[in-house]
């Protein structure tokens, strides 16, 4: 199968006088349509890695290749387009816009690309909100929602543009085990239905084990990389 995302010799060093190497020679490739999990201790470099994969952060050295193209060769605008159309983000700290309602937040990635929202698109957004169990609060202001609700809204938002890759950083960190189960079933379902590639950071071993592949990061290095048959 072809690789949708490849990382070659990625290093990330913070600071110029006191240098901290957060990522150390990471080489990874992700197959299109695969469902991957990343685990590791707090501070091991998981979010840093995910941000580099999502073109938000730049590695100190090494290459990030998306769909066979090195992102170092892309313009800022092209990277913006990729983040908008090809990648769906669920950030560790969810990050909804407080000036908008939950449904409007879900529709933002679509509006960035297309401007006005069509009726079909609105219905699709409502459907995703239903799938993450939030049909009752779609018109709530995003500040008037619980942490778990905000997190689920962010998941619906990541899905709205049907991206090829979903990068999720502890997407169920604020959820109880039942809701977590529902969300994972939903993500798996989308993975199977649309062939979307998932790369999910989680500290929940139980969840990680449900993925096709588990990558463990320890002190910025890949400690473990298990693919299920």
């Amino acid at each position: 199968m072809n690789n949708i995302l490849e990382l070659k010799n990625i290093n990330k060093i913070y600071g110029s006088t006191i240098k901290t190497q957060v990522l150390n020679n990471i080489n990874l490739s992700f197959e299109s349509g695969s469902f991957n999990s990343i685990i590791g201790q707090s501070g091991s470099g998981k979010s840093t890695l995910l941000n580099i994969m999502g073109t938000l952060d730049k590695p100190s050295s090494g290459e990030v290749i998306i769909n066979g193209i090195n992102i170092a060769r892309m313009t800022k605008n092209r990277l913006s387009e990729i983040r908008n159309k090809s990648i769906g983000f669920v950030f560790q700290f969810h990050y909804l816009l407080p000036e908008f309602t939950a449904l409007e937040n879900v529709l933002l990635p679509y509006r960035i690309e297309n401007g006005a929202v069509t009726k079909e698109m609105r219905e699709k957004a409502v459907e995703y909100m239903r799938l993450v169990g939030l049909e009752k609060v779609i018109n709530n202001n995003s500040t008037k929602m619980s942490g778990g609700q905000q997190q689920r809204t962010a998941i619906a938002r990541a899905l709205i543009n049907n991206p090829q890759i979903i990068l999720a950083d502890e997407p169920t960190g604020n959820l109880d085990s039942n809701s977590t189960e529902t969300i994972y079933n939903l993500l798996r379902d989308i993975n199977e239905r649309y062939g979307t590639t998932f790369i999910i950071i989680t500290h929940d071993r139980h969840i990680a084990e449900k993925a096709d592949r588990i990558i463990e990061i320890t002190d910025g290095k890949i400690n473990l990389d298990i693919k299920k048959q």
Partner: protein
Amino acid sequence: MKLSFSIALRFLRSNVLQTIIIILGIGIGVSVQIFIGSLIQGLQNSLVNSTIGNSSQITITASADNELLEDYTTLMQKAIDGGDSIINISPVLDNPAFLESGGASQSVVVRGFDRQKAEGIYKFSEYITEGAFPMNNGEVMLGTAIKDKYGLKIDDTISLITADKRTVVCRVSGFFDFKVAALNGSWCVTTIASAQEIFSIGDKVSAIEMQVASSEIFNADIIAENLRERLDNQGLRITDWKGQNEQLLSGLQGQSISSLMIQVFVMISVVLGIASVLAITVMQKSRQIGILKAMGIKSRQASLIFLSEGLMLGVFGALAGIAIGIGLSASFTAFALNPDGTPVIALYINSSFIMVSGLIAVLACLIAAMIPARRSSKLDPIDIIRNN
């Protein structure tokens, strides 16, 4: 574009109080500008009006002193034919004389007018306090100052003694009050025919007087120059009010410049205020801009958000400023009164000046919004995403 605009609107609505304060800030700046501008313009208008409103702005006389104009009807026709903005044109025959009544006498200037034509310039109908404009030969109209000095009434007779020592007895047909002591005390108004008879002059006049459209008042010198070229007659002298009121003109110019300076500095302080407030908003909203950029909003769109904010604040601020400015001007004319109850300065609303002030404010806000727009376009989303 549309998205940036609607995000900007949300940002402004999410902090209504701050938005209102900014709009008020712009509004007050614009209103001061409009108020001061209108005040100065009103002042200048009334100054110009009282100086040249009821007098000749361009005058044709013979180039030699004491010469008269002979074929004045053709000359007047030629002057109007130019299509310039000459709106009133009137011939006049002026002669000095002595007015005698009840043993006392004084010098006057006997002015022979064509009533209908002179009405355009002198608005006699508005200033006649008693009686009527002279109709027949031997009738004169006098100013209220002369009336009071000699205790005259309508139908009284006075004597005019000409330079060649002839005495002509005239009937008083009316009195006028031009609100200018010099005129009320020295003019003796009659018809052209009557003046020609009194002074034994053929069908000649001493001058042709003209007024130009009010919008062209300050172009009177140019219009006079055109007239000079068109008439192309060595025997004529054409003068305009600007050449004769240089002091007034330089006074007006000084006023305009100082008013402009005030307006410019008010605008600069508005721009600086808006720029700093918008710079703070971009800080307040950096989290949102970071998220939007992580989701793929382009730098151009990110800066458009703040330009849209600047535009909206500018438009609403300008509207508020226009409303407050007109209100200020109106209340100034309502409350700042002369002892006789008339406003110190008449209300002057120049809609194009107000519109330009509003547009400048909008433009200034757009310029002020460039700084935050630039910042927002430069903002790197990773700085937001990395730090909780």
